[in-house]
């Protein structure tokens, strides 16, 4: 079983503070946490810090060991981080893009093992038809799926996905969550998924971490973390949470409150 503990994490760029004292406590036992917040709230920065790709103060401990003290190779095997940007549109074939991701992390794998792992990941994401197309022949959404395949091919126990569904239509969005659920369940791992779609997060995540201006605004089960008040505080919108017929909470935005930076930057 994987346990990730995030406590009092702060970091900044120069004099600008980006994250300030963020604590998510212990995340374990197949939990899928949605990281929400307006643009510039610090979602990507938090995921990068957990992935060991940025310096920070505070504690990020994975299975009893600080992430900052883990070797790059071990961290790369255990932690799968999907960046926000899409894989580059190069003439790399999708299959070999995934193979290279696996080989870069697991040089100990034989080519047979790698092929088996890649086959499985293309099946699990249902993207076999993309396998022999070059990345510059794929749409943005298809490249995002290949990027996800690169991350999950090594079967990491911690998944950190930065807006993994930003370029995908509804069918593929559901497919991504299904795959994440399955991997996290099989490996008893944990997943933190940065999202802009509040309803998608409330529907598919066990917990929500709502960030605003680098601070944790709310944290807990979707129905508790997301309220009209937290929507107002974090996003600057006049909104409410209602339960649909299946008892799933949905966020409804009625309008923008106030003026200023937050109101101007939000759609």
């Amino acid at each position, binding site marked *: 079983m994987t346990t990730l503990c995030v406590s009092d994490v702060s970091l900044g760029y120069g004099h600008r503070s980006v994250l300030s004292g963020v604590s998510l406590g212990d995340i374990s036992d197949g939990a899928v946490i949605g990281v929400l917040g307006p643009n510039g709230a610090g979602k990507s920065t938090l995921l990068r810090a957990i*992935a060991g*790709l940025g310096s920070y103060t505070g504690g990020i401990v994975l299975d009893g060991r600080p992430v900052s003290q883990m070797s*790059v*190779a071990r*961290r*790369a*095997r255990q932690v*799968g*981080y*999907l*960046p926000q*940007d*899409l*894989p*580059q549109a*190069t*003439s*790399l*074939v999708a*299959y*070999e*893009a995934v*193979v*290279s*991701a696996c*080989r*870069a*992390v*697991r*040089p100990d*794998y*034989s080519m047979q*093992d*790698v*092929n*088996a*792992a*890649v*086959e*499985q990941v*293309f*099946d699990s994401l249902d993207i*076999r038809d993309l*396998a*022999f197309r*070059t*990345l510059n*022949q794929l749409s943005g959404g298809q490249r995002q799926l290949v*990027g996800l395949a*690169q*991350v999950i091919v*090594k*079967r990491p126990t911690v998944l950190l996905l930065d807006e993994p569904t930003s370029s995908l239509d509804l069918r593929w969005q559901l497919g991504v969550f299904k795959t994440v659920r399955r991997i996290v369940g099989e490996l008893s791992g944990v997943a933190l998924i940065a999202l802009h779609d509040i309803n998608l997060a409330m529907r598919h995540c066990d917990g929500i971490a709502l960030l605003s201006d680098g601070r944790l605004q709310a944290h807990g089960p979707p129905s508790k973390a997301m309220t009209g008040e937290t929507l107002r505080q974090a996003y600057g919108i006049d909104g409410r949470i209602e339960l649909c017929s299946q008892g799933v909470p949905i966020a409804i935005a009625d309008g923008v409150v106030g003026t200023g930076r937050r109101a101007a930057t939000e759609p």
Partner: protein
Amino acid sequence: MTSATQHRMLPPGKSDVPLAIGYRRFVHRRFIWLVALAVAVAVSIIVNVMTGPAGLSFSDVVQGLLRPSVLTPAEHVIIWDIRLPYAVMALVVGACLGLAGAEMQTVLNNPLASPSTLGVMYAATLGASLAIVFDLSVPLSLPENYIVPICAFIGAVASIGLIQILSRFYGATVDTVVLFGIALVFALQALVSLIQFVADSDSLQQIVFWTMGSVARATWEKIALIGGTLGVCLVFSLRQIWMMTALRGGENYAASFGVPVKRLRLVVLLRVSVLTAVAVAFTGVIGFVGLVGPHIARLAFGEDHRFYLPGSALAGAFILSGASIASKLLVPGILIPDGIVTALIGIPLFLALLLSQRRRPH
């Protein structure tokens, strides 16, 4: 139980044909193209040896290469002491520049990158110009034949060292490295022009000839040095093929897979500087090969670096080998510098290849 074992225990894929089989076919096709290119390079060597004022047939050359004892003394000198070193020099220099260009384009994520982009060629020119104009063989106590190559080598390596120091000081992003490189190109061009301005007519002639680039001054000793360097660099390159392939998906992705991107870039640029420096130190400036060789390899082999890197080296070797043949044929009796021929003949061919690729539907 390892993760790999767990994968094998998972349910099989939906399709009956495993992707690995399709991929194997894909890889075999590329391998065949790689072999075909290697054969083309080998044929170009034979044609290069055949070409020249003293007419030698294909069979004469093949027999002379396989059984040197059957050759007359004159033929032996022509093949083994004059034409073969010239042909092999073109091959190893072209391979060095092709490999250097490919690695540079990968780590700088820039298809316009080549050994001349970062000013390595111009730094070598500056070193060579200084050696020629100030006759540095006496103060440095170095052999006269080697003073120009040694100074060119020092200049080339120093340029990469300078870029590394500056870019590390200001943060080693790709853009920083490229920008420093471009700034260095202009600075070095100005310095070379200044040296040319103060040079006497003999020195000026030598500098101009050096900047045109030629493999005509080939000897087996130089070939061994360049070939040895190429072999060592190729071994180290092949050890990093998966990291470089992963890097083509994007720097952020590669970093998330555990690829030490900054260190990889540093190591590769140092290797590129050594490859370029050794190659141009003995030949002068040959700029086109390091840019176009990798493009041809990318069109033929894609960006799996298991094929792309050897493919770029072979493409570079083929271009320079072809150029050295053309340099003997264009004006009979006159050896036109290879640096001129590669650009004159290679660029139209490259553009034709590029345009035909664009017209091809996906």
